[in-house]
């Protein structure tokens, strides 16, 4: 009974899955990708330098103790923005989360300015 009902319903209902999942939303994100895209691969993302700069500046600007007007790509966290070393740690952790990175402790400790962070993230093969 139930299976007959199910078959009857499935015979008539067509759900337009592909249309609903159209590429309108995703298109801007995917246009920068290079040709060698494998969708199931563990990593197929490639970041452009200005994307990295924009996203890192956004993170630094949204840090509560930072005056957003002072933030430039060359800014030094402690000397120019008046942060302390623990704020620096928090910013680096935010950058790690944003780009899905895992930076070793000793290396993360060395990153103390926007320029270094941009350099590090841009050159990291797994940044996405």
């Amino acid at each position, binding site marked *: 009974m139930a299976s007959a009902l199910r078959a009857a319903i499935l015979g008539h209902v067509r759900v337009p899955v592909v249309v609903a999942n159209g590429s309108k939303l995703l298109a801007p994100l995917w246009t920068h990708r290079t040709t060698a895209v*494998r969708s*199931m*691969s*563990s*990593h*197929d993302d490639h970041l452009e330098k200005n994307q990295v700069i924009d996203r890192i500046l956004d993170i630094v600007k949204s840090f509560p103790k930072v005056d957003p007007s002072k933030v430039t790509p060359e800014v030094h966290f402690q000397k120019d923005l008046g942060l302390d*070393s*623990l704020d*620096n*740690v*928090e910013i*680096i*952790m935010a950058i*790690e989360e944003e780009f*899905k*990175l*895992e930076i070793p*402790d*000793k290396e*993360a*400790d060395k990153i103390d300015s926007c320029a270094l962070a941009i350099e590090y993230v841009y050159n990291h093969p*797994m940044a996405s």
Partner: protein
Amino acid sequence: MSGAASYLMRRAAQKERVRILYRRALKDTLTWAVHRHLFYPDADALRERFDANKNVEDIETIDRMIADGESQYNKWRHPDPYIVPWAPGGSKFTRNPEPPSGIEIVYDYGREDH
């Protein structure tokens, strides 16, 4: 001179230890937090504990405090911390890696001409 230099070196080493301890503790706090909104008060509390001893000057006291903090961190460390998927220990580590360059996948299995 050498006394001052060694003092400064020891202070720099202490500062690095504190930064790394704070970094590990903060990551651990995030791992312990079940939801993101539970993480923020925990992180603030952690930061307050570090800030409370910000102005301690005596170098031996600082050493003792750092050792104490590290032992507390080790005691409460999460048994199964969050690891970024691609990193060693992560859920995607070495899974489905990119094929080496020069290898091409033919998706239509030799039926190109038909």
